[in-house]
Protein backbone atom coordinates (compact mmCIF):
# COMPACT_ATOMS: atom_id res chain seq x y z
CA UNK A 1 0.00 0.00 0.00
CA UNK A 2 1.35 3.43 -0.89
CA UNK A 3 1.77 6.13 1.71
CA UNK A 4 -0.36 9.25 1.28
CA UNK A 5 1.47 11.10 4.01
CA UNK A 6 4.92 10.42 5.34
CA UNK A 7 6.54 12.55 7.99
CA UNK A 8 10.03 12.10 9.40
CA UNK A 9 11.41 14.05 12.37
CA UNK A 10 8.93 16.91 11.95
CA UNK A 11 9.32 19.86 14.30
CA UNK A 12 7.46 23.17 14.49
CA UNK A 13 8.36 26.05 16.78
CA UNK A 14 6.59 29.37 17.35
CA UNK A 15 9.39 31.62 18.52
CA UNK A 16 11.11 29.89 21.40
CA UNK A 17 8.16 27.59 22.10
CA UNK A 18 8.28 24.15 20.51
CA UNK A 19 4.76 23.25 19.36
CA UNK A 20 5.77 19.89 17.92
CA UNK A 21 9.01 17.92 18.20
CA UNK A 22 10.36 14.90 16.37
CA UNK A 23 7.10 13.63 14.90
CA UNK A 24 7.42 10.67 12.51
CA UNK A 25 4.64 8.59 10.97
CA UNK A 26 3.23 7.37 7.68
CA UNK A 27 -0.39 7.16 6.61
CA UNK A 28 -1.46 4.56 4.02
CA UNK A 29 -3.62 5.93 1.20
CA UNK A 30 -7.34 5.53 1.81
CA UNK A 31 -7.11 5.67 5.59
CA UNK A 32 -9.24 7.71 7.94
CA UNK A 33 -6.91 8.96 10.66
CA UNK A 34 -8.02 10.55 13.91
CA UNK A 35 -5.51 13.01 15.41
CA UNK A 36 -5.98 13.06 19.17
CA UNK A 37 -4.42 14.81 22.12
CA UNK A 38 -5.18 17.31 24.85
CA UNK A 39 -5.65 21.02 24.17
CA UNK A 40 -2.40 22.61 23.08
CA UNK A 41 -0.97 19.25 22.01
CA UNK A 42 -0.21 20.56 18.53
CA UNK A 43 -3.09 18.99 16.56
CA UNK A 44 -3.92 22.07 14.52
CA UNK A 45 -0.21 22.84 14.17
CA UNK A 46 0.36 19.41 12.62
CA UNK A 47 -2.40 20.02 10.07
CA UNK A 48 -0.97 23.42 9.21
CA UNK A 49 2.50 21.95 8.80
CA UNK A 50 1.08 19.29 6.45
CA UNK A 51 -0.67 22.09 4.58
CA UNK A 52 2.59 24.01 4.23
CA UNK A 53 1.18 26.95 6.17
CA UNK A 54 3.81 26.99 8.95
CA UNK A 55 7.59 26.63 8.74
CA UNK A 56 8.87 23.27 9.95
CA UNK A 57 12.00 21.18 10.30
CA UNK A 58 12.28 17.53 9.27
CA UNK A 59 11.02 15.76 6.16
CA UNK A 60 7.43 15.84 5.00
CA UNK A 61 5.87 14.23 1.92
CA UNK A 62 2.17 14.45 1.16
CA UNK A 63 0.06 13.48 -1.83
CA UNK A 64 -1.28 16.58 -3.60
CA UNK A 65 -3.58 18.38 -3.94
CA UNK A 66 -4.29 18.80 -0.26
CA UNK A 67 -7.67 20.16 0.82
CA UNK A 68 -8.29 21.69 4.23
CA UNK A 69 -11.31 22.42 6.37
CA UNK A 70 -10.27 24.88 9.09
CA UNK A 71 -11.76 25.19 12.55
CA UNK A 72 -14.65 27.59 12.51
CA UNK A 73 -13.68 31.19 13.06
CA UNK A 74 -16.08 34.06 13.60
CA UNK A 75 -14.11 36.34 11.32
CA UNK A 76 -15.26 34.52 8.21
CA UNK A 77 -18.91 35.06 9.08
CA UNK A 78 -18.64 38.75 8.25
CA UNK A 79 -17.47 38.18 4.69
CA UNK A 80 -20.13 38.81 2.03
CA UNK A 81 -20.28 35.44 0.30
CA UNK A 82 -22.96 32.79 -0.15
CA UNK A 83 -22.57 29.04 0.33
CA UNK A 84 -22.28 28.43 -3.42
CA UNK A 85 -19.53 31.06 -3.63
CA UNK A 86 -17.53 29.36 -0.89
CA UNK A 87 -17.74 25.96 -2.59
CA UNK A 88 -16.70 27.48 -5.93
CA UNK A 89 -13.51 28.78 -4.29
CA UNK A 90 -12.40 25.15 -4.31
CA UNK A 91 -12.25 25.27 -8.11
CA UNK A 92 -9.98 28.37 -8.31
CA UNK A 93 -6.61 26.58 -8.55
CA UNK A 94 -7.89 24.59 -11.55
CA UNK A 95 -9.33 27.68 -13.23
CA UNK A 96 -6.25 29.88 -13.30
CA UNK A 97 -6.09 33.63 -12.99
CA UNK A 98 -8.68 35.37 -15.07
CA UNK A 99 -11.25 32.64 -15.69
CA UNK A 100 -14.54 32.62 -13.80
CA UNK A 101 -16.22 29.38 -12.70
CA UNK A 102 -18.32 27.98 -15.59
CA UNK A 103 -21.90 26.75 -15.54
CA UNK A 104 -20.57 23.23 -15.18
CA UNK A 105 -18.48 24.31 -12.17
CA UNK A 106 -21.62 25.83 -10.64
CA UNK A 107 -23.64 22.65 -11.23
CA UNK A 108 -20.82 20.65 -9.66
CA UNK A 109 -20.75 22.95 -6.64
CA UNK A 110 -24.53 22.60 -6.24
CA UNK A 111 -24.19 18.81 -6.29
CA UNK A 112 -21.54 18.99 -3.57
CA UNK A 113 -23.81 21.20 -1.45
CA UNK A 114 -26.51 18.58 -1.94
CA UNK A 115 -24.01 15.91 -0.86
CA UNK A 116 -23.49 17.70 2.48
CA UNK A 117 -27.24 18.22 2.94
CA UNK A 118 -27.34 21.92 2.05
CA UNK A 119 -28.93 21.93 -1.41
CA UNK A 120 -31.51 24.50 -0.29
CA UNK A 121 -28.94 26.86 1.26
CA UNK A 122 -26.84 27.63 -1.84
CA UNK A 123 -27.90 31.29 -1.78
CA UNK A 124 -27.66 31.73 1.98
CA UNK A 125 -24.79 33.95 3.05
CA UNK A 126 -22.11 32.46 5.27
CA UNK A 127 -23.30 34.39 8.32
CA UNK A 128 -26.86 33.11 7.88
CA UNK A 129 -25.66 29.53 8.36
CA UNK A 130 -25.20 27.73 11.67
CA UNK A 131 -21.77 26.53 12.78
CA UNK A 132 -22.40 22.99 11.61
CA UNK A 133 -23.73 24.20 8.27
CA UNK A 134 -20.69 26.42 7.71
CA UNK A 135 -18.41 23.51 8.41
CA UNK A 136 -20.31 21.39 5.87
CA UNK A 137 -20.00 24.18 3.29
CA UNK A 138 -16.24 24.20 3.89
CA UNK A 139 -16.23 20.42 3.53
CA UNK A 140 -18.01 20.79 0.19
CA UNK A 141 -15.34 23.29 -0.82
CA UNK A 142 -12.65 20.76 0.10
CA UNK A 143 -14.42 18.21 -2.11
CA UNK A 144 -14.54 20.75 -4.95
CA UNK A 145 -10.75 20.95 -4.69
CA UNK A 146 -10.64 17.23 -5.51
CA UNK A 147 -7.86 16.81 -2.97
CA UNK A 148 -6.02 13.49 -2.66
CA UNK A 149 -5.62 14.22 1.04
CA UNK A 150 -8.26 15.95 3.19
CA UNK A 151 -7.22 17.69 6.40
CA UNK A 152 -10.16 18.41 8.72
CA UNK A 153 -9.70 20.46 11.89
CA UNK A 154 -12.31 19.53 14.49
CA UNK A 155 -15.04 18.91 11.91
CA UNK A 156 -17.27 17.30 14.52
CA UNK A 157 -17.14 19.82 17.35
CA UNK A 158 -19.93 22.25 17.95
CA UNK A 159 -22.16 20.56 15.40
CA UNK A 160 -25.49 18.80 15.68
CA UNK A 161 -26.01 15.06 15.24
CA UNK A 162 -27.21 15.44 11.65
CA UNK A 163 -24.09 17.43 10.68
CA UNK A 164 -21.86 14.80 12.28
CA UNK A 165 -23.47 11.92 10.42
CA UNK A 166 -23.34 13.79 7.09
CA UNK A 167 -19.68 14.67 7.59
CA UNK A 168 -18.77 11.10 8.57
CA UNK A 169 -20.69 9.75 5.56
CA UNK A 170 -18.76 11.99 3.20
CA UNK A 171 -15.45 11.02 4.80
CA UNK A 172 -16.23 7.29 4.46
CA UNK A 173 -17.12 7.83 0.81
CA UNK A 174 -13.85 9.70 0.17
CA UNK A 175 -11.78 6.96 1.82
CA UNK A 176 -13.57 4.34 -0.26
CA UNK A 177 -12.40 6.26 -3.33
CA UNK A 178 -8.78 5.98 -2.20
CA UNK A 179 -8.53 9.41 -0.69
CA UNK A 180 -6.92 9.93 2.67
CA UNK A 181 -8.56 11.85 5.51
CA UNK A 182 -6.82 13.23 8.61
CA UNK A 183 -9.13 14.69 11.22
CA UNK A 184 -8.31 16.32 14.56
CA UNK A 185 -10.83 15.68 17.30
CA UNK A 186 -11.09 15.77 21.05
CA UNK A 187 -13.87 13.20 21.03
CA UNK A 188 -12.05 9.94 21.77
CA UNK A 189 -15.08 7.69 21.78
CA UNK A 190 -16.24 9.03 18.40
CA UNK A 191 -12.74 8.66 16.96
CA UNK A 192 -12.53 5.08 18.21
CA UNK A 193 -15.89 4.35 16.57
CA UNK A 194 -15.18 5.83 13.12
CA UNK A 195 -11.42 6.11 12.46
CA UNK A 196 -9.29 3.21 11.27
CA UNK A 197 -6.03 4.75 12.43
CA UNK A 198 -5.09 7.10 15.27
CA UNK A 199 -2.29 9.49 15.95
CA UNK A 200 -1.92 10.66 19.53
CA UNK A 201 -0.02 13.91 20.08
CA UNK A 202 1.24 15.82 23.06
CA UNK A 203 3.78 18.34 21.71
CA UNK A 204 5.30 15.29 20.09
CA UNK A 205 4.07 11.93 18.88
CA UNK A 206 2.81 9.77 21.76
CA UNK A 207 1.56 6.87 19.68
CA UNK A 208 0.44 6.02 16.17
CA UNK A 209 -1.19 2.98 14.61
CA UNK A 210 -4.51 1.26 14.03
CA UNK A 211 -7.36 2.10 16.37
CA UNK A 212 -7.07 -1.29 18.12
CA UNK A 213 -3.39 -0.67 18.86
CA UNK A 214 -3.88 2.85 20.11
CA UNK A 215 -7.09 2.79 22.09
CA UNK A 216 -5.49 1.43 25.25
CA UNK A 217 -5.35 2.84 28.74
CA UNK A 218 -1.55 3.00 28.69
CA UNK A 219 -1.34 5.17 25.55
CA UNK A 220 -4.14 7.47 26.63
CA UNK A 221 -2.60 7.98 30.06
CA UNK A 222 0.65 9.03 28.42
CA UNK A 223 -1.20 11.60 26.30
CA UNK A 224 -3.77 12.90 28.72
CA UNK A 225 -2.08 12.32 32.08
CA UNK A 226 -4.37 11.49 34.98
CA UNK A 227 -7.63 12.39 33.26
CA UNK A 228 -8.26 8.85 31.99
CA UNK A 229 -10.94 6.60 33.39
CA UNK A 230 -11.39 2.92 32.64
CA UNK A 231 -15.00 1.76 32.32
CA UNK A 232 -15.83 -1.83 31.39
CA UNK A 233 -12.30 -2.30 30.15
CA UNK A 234 -12.66 0.67 27.75
CA UNK A 235 -10.62 3.76 28.48
CA UNK A 236 -12.21 7.21 28.38
CA UNK A 237 -10.86 10.71 28.88
CA UNK A 238 -12.54 12.85 31.49
CA UNK A 239 -13.39 15.92 29.49
CA UNK A 240 -13.94 18.79 31.90
CA UNK A 241 -15.44 21.68 29.93
CA UNK A 242 -14.57 24.16 32.70
CA UNK A 243 -10.95 23.27 32.67
CA UNK A 244 -9.92 23.73 29.06
CA UNK A 245 -6.57 25.23 28.28
CA UNK A 246 -6.72 28.28 25.98
CA UNK A 247 -7.27 27.41 22.33
CA UNK A 248 -4.16 26.44 20.46
CA UNK A 249 -2.39 29.50 19.19
CA UNK A 250 -1.75 29.31 15.51
Amino acid at each position, binding site marked *: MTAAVSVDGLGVAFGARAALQDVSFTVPAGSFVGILGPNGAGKTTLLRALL*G*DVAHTGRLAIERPVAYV*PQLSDAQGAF*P*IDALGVVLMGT*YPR*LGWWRRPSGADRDGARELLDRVGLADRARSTFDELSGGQRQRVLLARALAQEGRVLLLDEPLSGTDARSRELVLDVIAEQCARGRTVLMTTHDLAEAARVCDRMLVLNRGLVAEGTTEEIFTEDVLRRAYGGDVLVLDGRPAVIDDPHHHAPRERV
Partner: protein
Amino acid sequence: MEWLTDPWTSEIMRRAFAEAIVMGAAAGALGCFVLLRGLAFLGESVAHTLILGVVVAFLLGGPVALGAVGAAAATVGLSSLLAADRRFSVDVSMGVLLPSFFGLGVTLIALTDGYRARLEDTLFGAILGVTDLDLGLAAFVALAAAATLLLAGKELALVAFDRPMARAMGYRVGLLDLLLFALVTLVAVVALRAVGNVLLTAMLLGPALSARLLTRTLWPMVALAGGLGTLAGVLGLYWSYSSAVGGGPAIVLVVAMLFALAAGGRAAITLVR
Protein backbone atom coordinates in the same frame (compact mmCIF):
# COMPACT_ATOMS: atom_id res chain seq x y z
CA MET B 1 -32.54 72.54 -15.87
CA GLU B 2 -29.83 75.17 -15.92
CA TRP B 3 -28.47 74.06 -12.54
CA LEU B 4 -27.90 70.64 -14.07
CA THR B 5 -25.95 71.76 -17.13
CA ASP B 6 -24.38 74.98 -15.92
CA PRO B 7 -21.43 73.44 -14.06
CA TRP B 8 -20.43 71.50 -17.19
CA THR B 9 -19.91 74.70 -19.21
CA SER B 10 -16.72 75.50 -17.30
CA GLU B 11 -13.47 73.75 -18.22
CA ILE B 12 -12.40 73.72 -14.56
CA MET B 13 -15.62 71.97 -13.52
CA ARG B 14 -15.45 69.45 -16.35
CA ARG B 15 -11.98 68.44 -15.16
CA ALA B 16 -13.23 68.28 -11.58
CA PHE B 17 -16.13 66.04 -12.63
CA ALA B 18 -13.76 63.72 -14.49
CA GLU B 19 -11.48 63.48 -11.46
CA ALA B 20 -14.38 62.95 -9.04
CA ILE B 21 -16.03 60.25 -11.18
CA VAL B 22 -12.84 58.24 -11.72
CA MET B 23 -11.65 58.65 -8.14
CA GLY B 24 -15.08 57.83 -6.72
CA ALA B 25 -15.39 54.61 -8.70
CA ALA B 26 -11.86 53.38 -7.94
CA ALA B 27 -11.90 54.34 -4.26
CA GLY B 28 -15.37 52.82 -3.79
CA ALA B 29 -14.51 49.51 -5.44
CA LEU B 30 -11.09 49.04 -3.82
CA GLY B 31 -12.45 50.32 -0.52
CA CYS B 32 -14.46 47.06 -0.30
CA PHE B 33 -11.21 45.10 -0.03
CA VAL B 34 -9.81 47.61 2.46
CA LEU B 35 -12.95 47.15 4.56
CA LEU B 36 -13.10 43.34 4.32
CA ARG B 37 -9.39 42.90 5.01
CA GLY B 38 -9.62 45.20 8.03
CA LEU B 39 -7.08 47.54 6.44
CA ALA B 40 -8.81 50.82 7.34
CA PHE B 41 -5.67 51.83 9.17
CA LEU B 42 -3.62 51.27 6.00
CA GLY B 43 -5.70 53.85 4.14
CA GLU B 44 -5.41 56.30 7.00
CA SER B 45 -1.65 55.79 7.31
CA VAL B 46 -0.98 56.13 3.61
CA ALA B 47 -3.01 59.34 3.61
CA HIS B 48 -0.86 60.83 6.33
CA THR B 49 2.47 59.71 4.96
CA LEU B 50 1.63 61.27 1.58
CA ILE B 51 1.93 64.76 3.04
CA LEU B 52 5.71 64.32 3.19
CA GLY B 53 5.88 63.60 -0.54
CA VAL B 54 3.67 66.56 -1.31
CA VAL B 55 5.87 68.95 0.66
CA VAL B 56 9.07 67.56 -0.83
CA ALA B 57 7.61 67.93 -4.33
CA PHE B 58 6.74 71.53 -3.53
CA LEU B 59 10.25 72.22 -2.24
CA LEU B 60 11.84 70.71 -5.35
CA GLY B 61 9.37 72.47 -7.62
CA GLY B 62 8.06 69.18 -9.07
CA PRO B 63 4.48 68.04 -9.61
CA VAL B 64 2.58 67.31 -6.40
CA ALA B 65 1.16 64.03 -7.76
CA LEU B 66 4.66 62.64 -8.38
CA GLY B 67 5.74 63.54 -4.87
CA ALA B 68 2.72 61.74 -3.48
CA VAL B 69 3.41 58.66 -5.60
CA GLY B 70 7.01 58.66 -4.36
CA ALA B 71 5.95 58.90 -0.72
CA ALA B 72 3.34 56.20 -1.31
CA ALA B 73 5.89 53.85 -2.85
CA ALA B 74 8.25 54.48 0.07
CA THR B 75 5.43 53.78 2.52
CA VAL B 76 4.37 50.51 0.92
CA GLY B 77 7.96 49.39 0.35
CA LEU B 78 9.13 50.15 3.88
CA SER B 79 6.03 48.72 5.53
CA SER B 80 6.24 45.45 3.62
CA LEU B 81 9.93 45.26 4.54
CA LEU B 82 8.98 45.72 8.19
CA ALA B 83 6.02 43.38 7.93
CA ALA B 84 8.27 40.63 6.55
CA ASP B 85 9.40 40.25 10.15
CA ARG B 86 6.76 38.02 11.73
CA ARG B 87 6.71 40.14 14.87
CA PHE B 88 5.28 43.15 13.01
CA SER B 89 1.91 43.21 11.33
CA VAL B 90 1.21 45.64 8.50
CA ASP B 91 -0.74 47.73 10.99
CA VAL B 92 2.17 47.95 13.39
CA SER B 93 4.72 48.85 10.75
CA MET B 94 2.36 51.48 9.37
CA GLY B 95 1.93 52.76 12.89
CA VAL B 96 5.69 53.39 12.98
CA LEU B 97 5.89 54.96 9.53
CA LEU B 98 2.83 57.20 9.85
CA PRO B 99 4.04 59.51 12.61
CA SER B 100 7.59 59.56 11.21
CA PHE B 101 6.51 60.62 7.72
CA PHE B 102 3.77 62.92 8.93
CA GLY B 103 6.04 64.54 11.51
CA LEU B 104 8.77 65.06 8.94
CA GLY B 105 6.25 66.55 6.52
CA VAL B 106 4.85 68.96 9.10
CA THR B 107 8.36 69.97 10.14
CA LEU B 108 9.28 70.71 6.52
CA ILE B 109 6.11 72.80 6.17
CA ALA B 110 7.06 74.81 9.25
CA LEU B 111 10.50 75.46 7.76
CA THR B 112 9.18 76.40 4.33
CA ASP B 113 7.90 79.93 4.00
CA GLY B 114 5.81 79.65 0.87
CA TYR B 115 3.96 76.45 1.63
CA ARG B 116 1.74 77.24 4.55
CA ALA B 117 -0.84 78.93 2.35
CA ARG B 118 -1.24 75.72 0.33
CA LEU B 119 -1.55 73.49 3.35
CA GLU B 120 -5.33 73.65 3.15
CA ASP B 121 -5.21 72.15 -0.36
CA THR B 122 -3.31 69.16 0.97
CA LEU B 123 -5.61 68.67 3.92
CA PHE B 124 -8.96 69.16 2.20
CA GLY B 125 -8.19 68.66 -1.47
CA ALA B 126 -8.16 71.03 -4.42
CA ILE B 127 -10.37 69.34 -6.96
CA LEU B 128 -10.88 72.59 -8.91
CA GLY B 129 -7.16 72.73 -9.58
CA VAL B 130 -6.55 69.29 -11.12
CA THR B 131 -3.80 69.24 -13.72
CA ASP B 132 -3.43 67.02 -16.80
CA LEU B 133 -0.99 64.93 -14.79
CA ASP B 134 -3.60 64.46 -12.01
CA LEU B 135 -6.22 63.37 -14.53
CA GLY B 136 -3.80 61.04 -16.28
CA LEU B 137 -2.81 59.49 -12.96
CA ALA B 138 -6.47 59.06 -11.97
CA ALA B 139 -7.24 57.34 -15.28
CA PHE B 140 -4.20 55.09 -14.95
CA VAL B 141 -5.13 54.11 -11.39
CA ALA B 142 -8.74 53.37 -12.36
CA LEU B 143 -7.59 51.21 -15.27
CA ALA B 144 -5.05 49.39 -13.10
CA ALA B 145 -7.73 48.74 -10.47
CA ALA B 146 -10.19 47.48 -13.08
CA ALA B 147 -7.57 45.23 -14.69
CA THR B 148 -6.54 43.81 -11.32
CA LEU B 149 -10.10 43.05 -10.27
CA LEU B 150 -10.71 41.39 -13.65
CA LEU B 151 -7.53 39.30 -13.63
CA ALA B 152 -7.08 38.54 -9.93
CA GLY B 153 -10.36 39.58 -8.32
CA LYS B 154 -11.37 36.09 -7.28
CA GLU B 155 -7.90 35.41 -5.88
CA LEU B 156 -7.97 38.65 -3.85
CA ALA B 157 -11.39 37.59 -2.55
CA LEU B 158 -10.02 34.15 -1.61
CA VAL B 159 -7.12 35.70 0.30
CA ALA B 160 -9.52 38.03 2.12
CA PHE B 161 -11.89 35.17 2.99
CA ASP B 162 -9.46 32.38 3.87
CA ARG B 163 -5.78 33.19 3.95
CA PRO B 164 -4.40 29.78 5.03
CA MET B 165 -6.42 28.07 2.29
CA ALA B 166 -5.15 30.49 -0.33
CA ARG B 167 -1.59 29.77 0.73
CA ALA B 168 -2.23 26.02 0.73
CA MET B 169 -3.63 26.26 -2.80
CA GLY B 170 -0.26 27.60 -3.86
CA TYR B 171 -1.09 31.28 -4.27
CA ARG B 172 1.67 33.79 -3.49
CA VAL B 173 -0.36 35.48 -0.76
CA GLY B 174 2.35 38.03 0.03
CA LEU B 175 2.48 39.19 -3.59
CA LEU B 176 -1.30 39.51 -3.75
CA ASP B 177 -1.15 41.59 -0.56
CA LEU B 178 1.47 43.84 -2.08
CA LEU B 179 -0.64 44.28 -5.21
CA LEU B 180 -3.65 45.29 -3.11
CA PHE B 181 -1.60 47.67 -0.93
CA ALA B 182 -0.04 49.27 -3.99
CA LEU B 183 -3.46 49.84 -5.58
CA VAL B 184 -4.94 51.24 -2.37
CA THR B 185 -1.97 53.57 -2.10
CA LEU B 186 -2.37 54.77 -5.69
CA VAL B 187 -6.06 55.41 -5.09
CA ALA B 188 -5.08 57.34 -1.98
CA VAL B 189 -2.78 59.52 -4.09
CA VAL B 190 -5.63 60.28 -6.49
CA ALA B 191 -8.10 60.93 -3.68
CA LEU B 192 -5.55 63.21 -1.99
CA ARG B 193 -5.98 65.60 -4.90
CA ALA B 194 -9.77 65.36 -4.87
CA VAL B 195 -10.76 65.33 -1.21
CA GLY B 196 -7.48 65.85 0.62
CA ASN B 197 -5.47 64.12 3.24
CA VAL B 198 -7.91 64.34 6.13
CA LEU B 199 -11.04 63.28 4.25
CA LEU B 200 -9.49 60.53 2.16
CA THR B 201 -10.37 57.62 4.44
CA ALA B 202 -14.05 58.53 4.20
CA MET B 203 -13.85 58.18 0.41
CA LEU B 204 -12.21 54.76 0.73
CA LEU B 205 -14.50 53.33 3.40
CA GLY B 206 -17.82 55.20 3.16
CA PRO B 207 -19.13 53.81 -0.12
CA ALA B 208 -17.86 50.32 0.79
CA LEU B 209 -19.68 50.41 4.13
CA SER B 210 -22.93 51.59 2.53
CA ALA B 211 -22.66 48.88 -0.14
CA ARG B 212 -21.95 46.22 2.50
CA LEU B 213 -25.25 47.11 4.19
CA LEU B 214 -27.23 46.72 0.98
CA THR B 215 -25.67 43.63 -0.64
CA ARG B 216 -25.15 39.97 0.22
CA THR B 217 -22.14 38.98 -1.84
CA LEU B 218 -18.82 40.52 -2.82
CA TRP B 219 -19.11 41.47 -6.48
CA PRO B 220 -22.47 43.26 -6.19
CA MET B 221 -20.95 45.06 -3.20
CA VAL B 222 -17.90 46.14 -5.23
CA ALA B 223 -20.07 47.35 -8.12
CA LEU B 224 -22.43 49.24 -5.82
CA ALA B 225 -19.57 50.82 -3.85
CA GLY B 226 -17.98 52.01 -7.11
CA GLY B 227 -21.33 53.47 -8.16
CA LEU B 228 -21.91 55.18 -4.80
CA GLY B 229 -18.39 56.66 -4.89
CA THR B 230 -19.06 58.08 -8.33
CA LEU B 231 -22.48 59.40 -7.29
CA ALA B 232 -20.98 61.09 -4.24
CA GLY B 233 -18.33 62.72 -6.42
CA VAL B 234 -20.87 64.13 -8.88
CA LEU B 235 -23.45 65.24 -6.29
CA GLY B 236 -20.74 66.74 -4.12
CA LEU B 237 -19.43 68.84 -6.99
CA TYR B 238 -22.94 70.11 -7.84
CA TRP B 239 -23.38 71.09 -4.22
CA SER B 240 -20.00 72.76 -4.08
CA TYR B 241 -20.69 74.65 -7.34
CA SER B 242 -23.89 76.18 -6.03
CA SER B 243 -22.60 77.03 -2.56
CA ALA B 244 -19.57 78.12 -0.64
CA VAL B 245 -18.72 74.56 0.41
CA GLY B 246 -15.37 73.28 -0.88
CA GLY B 247 -15.35 70.36 -3.33
CA GLY B 248 -13.60 67.86 -1.05
CA PRO B 249 -15.75 68.43 2.04
CA ALA B 250 -18.93 68.46 -0.09
CA ILE B 251 -18.08 65.07 -1.69
CA VAL B 252 -17.26 63.53 1.68
CA LEU B 253 -20.47 64.88 3.21
CA VAL B 254 -22.47 63.28 0.39
CA VAL B 255 -20.65 60.01 1.13
CA ALA B 256 -21.77 60.34 4.75
CA MET B 257 -25.37 61.14 3.72
CA LEU B 258 -25.48 58.14 1.40
CA PHE B 259 -24.26 56.00 4.27
CA ALA B 260 -26.95 57.41 6.56
CA LEU B 261 -29.54 56.59 3.88
CA ALA B 262 -28.18 53.05 3.48
CA ALA B 263 -28.10 52.47 7.23
CA GLY B 264 -31.61 53.90 7.61
CA GLY B 265 -32.91 51.80 4.73
CA ARG B 266 -31.28 48.72 6.17
CA ALA B 267 -32.82 49.36 9.60
CA ALA B 268 -36.24 49.89 8.01
CA ILE B 269 -35.98 46.59 6.13
CA THR B 270 -35.04 44.79 9.34
CA LEU B 271 -37.98 46.37 11.18
CA VAL B 272 -40.49 45.43 8.48
CA ARG B 273 -39.30 41.83 8.51
